[in-house]
């Protein structure tokens, strides 16, 4: 028997013979681990790509001075260069450009304007060594406005040669440039996907329209001196609109910004593993029931309970390891498929990232494997205890062992009540923006409370259902109830799994539906114009470049146009966190009949304009703990300016939040000739089609406008809802997996019952129950489990959906969502799951009716 005789006798050969069960157990772990790994990996990879970029772009810089949207006076470079503890300074303007010649090109380039005249600092900070084209001198780089040095990767992709001329579009303007040189082997350039073009600061100012100001200054501080001390000292030299930080602070900031997004997705992943645990419990129960006679024999031979238990725990661990490894492989595949979606979601909502490969971290994969094994071990604990706890005499005898679970145990009642109270208590805490820890802790507490209630509820319900079931379905109904009551433990686990899977599906569905409805209503309120004009984004993950404000004036002069609202958005750090500063014509509110916090929007915005006040989005206000009447400090080229908040408004377009000022005020503060979109209000009776053509004509006449997207009001809403549905696509996959695993849990429970009650079922066949009647009995039992599971699933789903919508969404994103229950959708989901549990009884029923074949009650086979 080798070194592990008990394991071999109890586990070894069965794993091969019970192939279906073994596979199902492995599947339970593998699916959970796969979802977990996929979510984590796709997330990590997308963020790691961003962080790598941050780190490579920072190069050897130890400190970075940022203009925070308002820019930096170039004179500051000299001040910093002379400061004590500073070894090198490298000023920078960063912009983007689109490669024009390629038809339908999505190639965007990062334009880096560096000080080529003072290359010392640049070389020390960044790794951007380049080789000039023949016939191009260094002075050409400084004097020719179109001289650019491109990264080798881009030149190869674009088919450009050294010295060749080509066209780029920068801030809406097409401009001719030439390939003055090539950057080779630069980690810096590679960090940006090779799409990098470098030019001199002096030339860049015109092209990138920064009004003579810098975006950033990277510094190298003296080695051996504490960076923090130097940072403090330099901070005193800086104007209030400029900040100084370590380069890695940007990554930390992004980590904080993405924490809620990642936490939410991660939570879904862990729920999948938890649902998997229920499946493992069931399949392990089947193993125990099947091997009961062998256990009895071994126990009679003197094998201790402990060794029996450990043998089954070892099986659980083995299944966990195999399932975990398969889950990791599957998860990596799934992550590769999800990477684009997650990258796009992060790029659109948070920061630009372009992950092309997965960032595999052995530590994290090992952690997932460990978690899978731990889950399998925990799930195997109950069945292993069941196997070991029964004395040999009982195990040798035929019949069920499932008599251990008391439906109304005191400790379960106490745990359930304590969880309920804890959950309710957590909900009373004020939702704070940040990580939705209280929200999820409350959800977990409610899930535990629901799980504690399952055995008691199932017992009570099955007792209550006995008479009507027997009346409706005759003997089969009576037997179905009897079978459920005699296996309350296993049935409760199956129902728990079903409840959890369905609860998760319903809660997410309700949240998504409520969110969608809220967004629809919100769009009706904020989208009042007839047409919206904006530049086409070069790709799904890239933001569109801005355009010249002159276009808005041209449009306003067109026939049929009543009013235009040019809108400008700038990313900047506002009161310690990244946000958007928006500028538009607040008088556009006169087209709206909506109220804002109980007052007509037109009135509120008129006052805001008159008093140079801001309106801020809910997310902006919540994250900073601000309300109406508070002030917001905005960094401007003229210094830090404070503005009073006139009102807080609902907005669902950015979780970082918006602070919006009137365009006139904005133009006074910022020398910025650019806009990001134009909302066009047409005169009554004007033809939108004609207006659209006229706008296209005006853009063509202007000649400096990037390709435009002109959308009618309804079209824009359609695009927004499409994007919304795409964003939540991932959750549907997870929900589907959870439901499948939960339904498999019901099927395996029925299998276990059938194996456990094989003799009873056979006795029924002797009494005269036909195969059809036995199958009907199994189906009725499945229906009972399905019904209870669906009822509890819907109930827990609704409770969780409320927490998700009213607590977690606010904690995560700072958004108030109108809670609405899509009853029809819930009904459909419940019906499908109930149908699936009924369908899940087919195989167990077949097993049950076939067990009578060639088997006898009477000792001889």
């Amino acid at each position, binding site marked *: 028997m080798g070194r592990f005789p008990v394991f071999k006798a109890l586990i070894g050969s069965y794993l091969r013979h019970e192939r279906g069960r073994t596979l199902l157990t492995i599947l339970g772990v593998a699916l959970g681990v796969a979802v977990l790994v996929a979510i984590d990996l796709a997330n990590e990879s997308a963020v790691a790509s961003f962080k790598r970029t941050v780190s490579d772009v920072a190069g050897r810089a130890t400190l970075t001075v940022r203009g925070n949207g308002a820019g930096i006076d170039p004179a500051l470079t000299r001040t910093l260069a002379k400061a004590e503890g500073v070894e090198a300074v490298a000023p920078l303007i960063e912009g983007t450009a689109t490669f024009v010649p390629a038809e339908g090109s999505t190639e965007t380039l990062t334009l880096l304007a560096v000080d080529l005249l003072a290359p010392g600092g640049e070389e020390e900070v960044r790794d951007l060594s380049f080789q000039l084209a023949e016939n191009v001198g260094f002075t050409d780089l400084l004097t020719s406005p179109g001289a650019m040095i491109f990264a080798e990767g881009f030149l190869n992709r674009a088919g450009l040669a050294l010295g060749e001329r080509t066209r780029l579009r920068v801030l809406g303007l097409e401009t001719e440039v030439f390939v003055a040189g090539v950057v080779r082997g630069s980690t810096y350039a590679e960090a940006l996907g090779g799409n990098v073009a470098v030019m001199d600061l002096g030339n860049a100012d015109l092209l990138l329209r920064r009004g003579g100001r810098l975006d950033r200054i990277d510094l190298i501080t003296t080695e051996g001196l504490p960076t923090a001390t130097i940072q403090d000292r330099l901070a005193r030299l800086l104007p209030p609109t400029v900040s100084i930080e370590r380069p890695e602070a940007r990554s930390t900031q992004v980590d904080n910004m993405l924490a809620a997004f990642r936490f939410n997705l991660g939570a879904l992943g862990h729920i999948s593993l938890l649902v998997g645990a229920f499946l493992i419990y069931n399949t392990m129960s089947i193993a125990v029931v099947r091997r009961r006679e062998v256990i009895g024999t071994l126990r009679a031979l003197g094998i201790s309970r402990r060794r029996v238990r450990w043998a089954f725990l070892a099986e659980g661990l083995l299944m966990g390891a195999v399932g975990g490894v398969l889950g990791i492989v599957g998860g990596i595949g799934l992550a590769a498929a999800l990477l684009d979606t997650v990258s796009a979601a992060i790029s659109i909502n948070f920061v630009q990232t372009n992950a092309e490969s997965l960032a595999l971290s052995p530590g994290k994969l090992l952690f997932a494997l460990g978690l899978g094994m731990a889950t399998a071990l925990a799930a195997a604990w109950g069945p292993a205890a069941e196997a070991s706890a029964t004395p040999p005499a009982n195990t040798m005898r035929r019949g069920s062992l499932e008599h251990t679970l008391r439906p109304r145990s005191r400790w379960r009642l106490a745990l359930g009540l304590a969880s309920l109270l804890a959950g309710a208590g957590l909900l009373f805490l004020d939702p704070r923006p940040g990580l939705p820890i209280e929200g999820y802790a409350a959800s977990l507490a409610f899930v535990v409370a629901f799980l504690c209630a399952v055995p008691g509820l199932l017992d009570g319900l099955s007792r209550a259902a006995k008479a009507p079931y027997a009346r409706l379905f005759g003997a089969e109904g*009576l037997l179905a109830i*009897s079978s459920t009551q005699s296996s309350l433990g296993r049935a409760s686990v199956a129902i728990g799994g079903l409840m959890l899977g369905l609860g998760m599906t319903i809660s997410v569905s309700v949240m998504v539906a409520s969110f969608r409805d809220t967004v629809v209503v919100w769009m009706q309120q904020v989208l009042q114009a007839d047409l919206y004009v904006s530049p086409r984004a070069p790709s799904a993950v890239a933001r569109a470049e801005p355009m010249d404000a002159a276009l808005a004036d041209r449009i306003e002069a067109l026939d049929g146009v009543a009013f235009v609202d040019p809108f400008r958005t700038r990313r900047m750090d506002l009161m310690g966190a990244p946000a958007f500063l928006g500028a538009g014509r607040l008088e556009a509110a006169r087209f709206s009949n909506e109220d804002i916090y109980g007052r007509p929007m037109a009135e509120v915005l008129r006052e805001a304009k008159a008093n140079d006040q801001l309106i801020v989005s809910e997310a902006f206000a919540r994250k900073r703990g601000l309300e109406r009447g508070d002030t917001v400090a905005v960094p401007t080229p003229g210094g830090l300016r404070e503005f009073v908040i006139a009102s807080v408004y609902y907005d669902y377009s950015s979780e970082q939040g918006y602070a919006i000022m009137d365009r006139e005020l904005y133009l006074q503060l910022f020398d910025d000739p650019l806009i990001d979109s134009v909302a066009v209000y047409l005169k009554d009776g004007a033809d939108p089609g004609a207006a659209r053509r006229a706008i296209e004509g005006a853009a063509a006449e202007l000649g400096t406008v990037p390709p435009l997207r002109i959308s009618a009001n309804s079209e824009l809403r359609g695009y927004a809802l499409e994007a919304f549905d795409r964003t939540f696509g991932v959750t549907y996959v997870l929900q589907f997996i959870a439901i499948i695993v939960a339904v498999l849990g019901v099927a395996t429970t029925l299998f276990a019952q059938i194996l456990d009650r094989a*003799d009873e079922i056979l*006795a029924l066949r002797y009494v*005269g129950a036909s195969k059809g*009647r036995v199958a009907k009995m199994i189906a009725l039992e499945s229906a009972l489990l399905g019904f209870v599971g669906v009822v509890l699933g819907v109930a827990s789903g609704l409770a969780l959906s409320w927490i998700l919508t009213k607590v977690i969404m606010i904690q995560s994103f700072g958004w108030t969502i109108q809670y609405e229950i899509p009853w029809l959708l819930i009904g459909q989901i419940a019906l499908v799951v109930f149908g699936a549990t009924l369908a899940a009884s087919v195989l167990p029923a077949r097993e049950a009716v076939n067990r009578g074949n060639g088997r*006898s*009650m*009477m*000792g001889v086979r």
Partner: protein
Amino acid sequence: MPPAADTAPAPQPAAESAPSPAISIRDVSKSYGTERKGQPPVPVLRGVSLDVRPGEFVSLMGSSGSGKTTLLNMVGGLDVPDAGIVTVAGQNLARLTDKQRSEFRLRHIGFVFQFFNLLPNLTVRENIALPLLFQSRPARDADAAAASVEEEVGLGGKGARRISQLSGGEMQRVALARALIHRPAVLLADEPTGNLDSRTGETILALIRNLAQEHGATVLMATHDLAATQASDRVVRMRDGQVVSGDDAEGAA
């Protein structure tokens, strides 16, 4: 032509002079296993013939593996012979479909097992009433009939009890009541005293005999306990799948 699928096949009328046997087994053979895996089939019954008269109590004696349980399964319609004919209450079971055989069992056959095989989560009364409920008889009728049989087997007043609250002897009484409630033509018993002490076993055997007589049931009982056979009218001995003595119904009793 077999009878309609959902009606119980009725026993055929008795012949005019000598009554037809309640159970007629003619040259029945049965083997298990296939040659697929290179193992020859194992013969369990080899040309067994046996008649049991209506109302007769016959014991099948034999050691383990002698084929008595397989024979009971054939009579109960749970298994079909490879060769030969099994007729119960005038019905050739081989002509019935699986569903019809179930229906036949439900109406004409009762079973008693060594380990009682009761349903632990049903009450005594519900266990007993099960065959009638399977026959789709109204619950009230089934309940009343079960109450009556409870009295007959000496379980009066214990109808509401759970199975786990009963002693072994009481459990076997419940099993007997369940086997007789639908007034079967044939009662099949497999080691009914095998799990009971000798005194309780004697009581149960007496009960089987008396109740079978009262209900007019023919009894075929498999046992390897010589003492148990004393309650029967005739003892049929089996060895290696063959009847070695007692197959002559006329010469017995």
